[in-house]
């Protein structure tokens, strides 16, 4: 079930667009922000609120990589493994995540605390290696720094 606030916010988004289809992406963002992912029930509900057929909602949401269709941990780590970050040791960081948290790319820790996705270049090559945790940006990562940073996310 979507919260009352989310429903309200979707209504507001809808009012800003000429047709329902256009308001779909921003509405899905709002839902994902609340739930962390887009469950079938949530897709259905968004469809009902916007009067967009639910199959169409699913088609759109699965097209875009930024929408998640499986539950994820409380915090999402997006670690870059593209060239610059790779040269600067991102592979080692991956190993650390695996050893310390049992975290593999596209996986979630057993306690549901972290999920991990590997990224292609997040635009921080000059200060590589870099990652995003939820919406926070962290660069110049080292073995020590990454552990410290992650420990601040409960």
């Amino acid at each position, binding site marked *: 079930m979507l919260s009352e606030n989310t429903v309200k916010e979707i209504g507001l988004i809808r009012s800003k667009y000429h047709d329902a289809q256009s308001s779909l992406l921003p509405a899905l963002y709002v839902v994902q922000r609340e739930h962390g992912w887009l469950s079938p029930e949530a*897709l259905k509900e968004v469809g009902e609120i916007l009067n967009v057929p639910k*199959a169409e909602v699913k088609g759109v949401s699965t097209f875009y990589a930024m929408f998640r269709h499986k539950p994820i941990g409380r915090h999402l780590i997006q670690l870059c493994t593209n060239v610059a970050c790779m040269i600067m040791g991102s592979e080692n960081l991956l190993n650390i995540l695996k050893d310390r948290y049992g975290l593999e790319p596209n996986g979630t820790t057993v306690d549901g605390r972290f999920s991990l996705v590997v990224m292609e270049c997040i635009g921080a090559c000059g200060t590589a290696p870099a990652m995003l945790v939820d919406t926070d940006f962290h660069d110049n990562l080292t073995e020590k720094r990454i552990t410290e940073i992650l420990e601040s996310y409960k």
Partner: protein
Amino acid sequence: MITVTINRKKINLEKPVTILKAARMAGIEIPTLCNHEMLEPFGGCRLCLVEIEKMPRLQTSCTQYVTDGMVVWTETEKVVEARKAMLEFLLINHALDCPYCDKAGECDLQDVTAKYGPATGRFAEGKRRHPESFDDPIIVRNMERCISCTRCVRMCSKVQGAYAISMVNRSSKTFVEPFSGGRYDCEYCGNCLTVCPVGAIMSRMHRHTYRPWQIEKEADTVCSFCGVGCSMVLQVRGNSIVRAVPRETGGSNKGLLCNRGRFGYDYVVSSGRLDSPMIKRDGKFRRASWSEAFTYIAGRLKKIKEDSGGNSIAGIVSGRCTNEDGYVFQKFMRAVLGSNNIDSVASFGYAQAQRFFEGIFGQGVTANSMRGIPNSDGVFVVGGDPTAVNPVLGLQIRAAAGKGVPVTAVGYMPGLKIFAANRPMPKPFTETALLSAMVTELRNIKGISGKGLFDKLIKDIPPVSLGEAEEVCGVPSKDIRSAVDALSRMTNPSIVIGMDIIRRTEGQANLLLLAALVSLLNSRIYLLSELPNEQGLTDMGCLPDMLPGGRHLTVESFRRRYEEFFGVDIPSSPGMGIMEMIEAAHDKKIKALYVMGEDLVYSMPDSAYVKAALSKLDFLVMHDIFMTETAGLADVVIPSLSWSEKEGSYTNLERRMQIVRKAVEGKGMEEWRAVSEISRLLGFNMDYKSSGDVIAEIAKVSPLHKDITYEDMTGECMWPYKGEPLRHGISLEDIEMPDKGSLLKRPEKDRIYIGVDKPLFHFETLSRNSEALSSIAPEPYMNVGKALAGRLFLAEGDSANVSTAAGSLKLSVRVDPDIPDNSVMVPDNFGDKGVYAIMQWKVNSALKAPVTDAEGVTIKKMKHAAEEVAV
């Protein structure tokens, strides 16, 4: 004038079309995969690439329009190379399991690959795996074969309007899926199957039973699951129907079908089919030979006629009977048995509505082509959901909405929910108030000349204000006003009328109000018809007061014509209608009833009453394909042929006459043939060798069907044929002016009303014999609104008891927020678990039609079995 040259051929065109179309018009084939005649151009597969002089790159001919002077080449080396490359890409992930795939032989991909494709691909990576999905009872989905042409998705959303499937994921991971990812839970029209170019989505009903080239016979026929009469082809192998597909051109459906037409045919091979005449003696049926049965029937009818007169015999025809059956039967009743007591289920509203409108506007006023609906400038729908009763007609309304034509849908119509601009939702059975206010308003806006007879009548309709209507029907004045405003701006709207609005206590007032709307708005009328040949039976004189061709029996000159032709006198006064017959049976006023194919017990309200009436008869003859509840009460049962086992003709709700053709052999007998055998035994010679002989006689005697032949029935055989319709003046004598009180009748406070639900997936009680349709919709149910469900603590899936004075039913609950409050809808397709089992017998005496409104019910939630154990 545009001139374009394709492969050196000059083509002159009036208006610009796509290169693909121009080429096809000139007989030049260009391969396509994503393009389909029934869909808008898409330009996705790039197989239709062509070379256009003065254009640097190859263009997709399905999207590129011609311009004057354009020079196009469709098979240059460059084009052929490009097509080959496109195919190489398409085949990267294609399963290439043709030897095992049901589509092989009619697969577009196979055909184009054979012509253009590379024999081997260069991609060494493994193919995408995607296990075949058998989650759905009807459609099997094999996404390893899907080429992402989106034809199915475009069909489902843009044409069918069901929006049930979509392309999910991206790039090479793209495939098609219904929302659930498993079961489709859609409208099951199967129109997506028609357009899929490959074997990615297919019907489970014929899986691995044949190859396209093994089809031995194709019967070009029409569907018999409703009054639209979609043209279809039945494909046959070894005397069994392997598949039903729409005919691509012609007919009213233009390549579309609904779930019933496409998948419902399997009832034909249901194990319950009757295969021999049966005679009941000492309460027990035993098999009899045809001649034994006919002799027995003739003997009993003869005796009854001698003892009690022809008037004590009555006959009823099912809407599934052909024109030929109907014609011969009414002749038999009138000329052989001397009785005008003949009627059909068309008199559950359809015939009355038509008669009413024809009385005012002239014969043929309801004969309008369905294709006109999207071309009108407004659609007004009342009395039933067209997308469920006449699904393919419903698609025309959706198409209209898609073109921006405003649709007003009055009452519960789930299938038009997202298509109707206006959806006034009156309280149960209060449409009369709403219609009165609309007529009052429109009368003021439009003004009426007051000259014509009917104008005078419109003037006399008691005025009902928006406020008064709102108070009764609960539709806010401003909503009625906006519906009226929308209507008043229209110049050629379509009014679509379902039978539910006629089967009312106020049925006649409703007809008058609708006629007033038609007149004020200058609109076309479409009557929804639940059965395939209601119109035909009406035209064939299967009515107590009408002779074939819509000629009144009481007009002496008309009657004489038939008497001379038949060589005997016909009783000159009208007989009993279907409702009167049942009452007369109850009162023992008729002795014998001859029923052709109608399960009366469950097709009209009050099963117990109807059953009791039929049990009082001295003699009941029944033709049917199954041992129905009604057949079980008969003295003699004659096995019928299903529509796919006989020849004849149907007349659809547009009054289009179409041929029904035999696809497979059956074990029963055509009704006309059986009846003529019995006639002969009764000393009246009927010498028809084939249905063609019957239509030849109809063409001779019925002025409306003058000179008609099967050759005329090409799919476009429309009213008034070559015949002479009656253009008689207005007959308004019978029209009673309703008083204001009856226009403003309110629902009783706190009463819960029961209404008849017409589900998309079923047809009469017959469709329960179709495994396919039963697998889609296996269970009877009651549909209640959200508020009522809340008050009664009912949730989806609960089981509850719904009861009236006539009985009670235990049903599972469905909650639909759109059902008007204080009403419950129960379908009529589930026999003793259907709505008629608990509805009380009520007749509208003016219309002689059943009344299905005003029935109060109580609903009680049942405890779950598990809870009961726990208690």
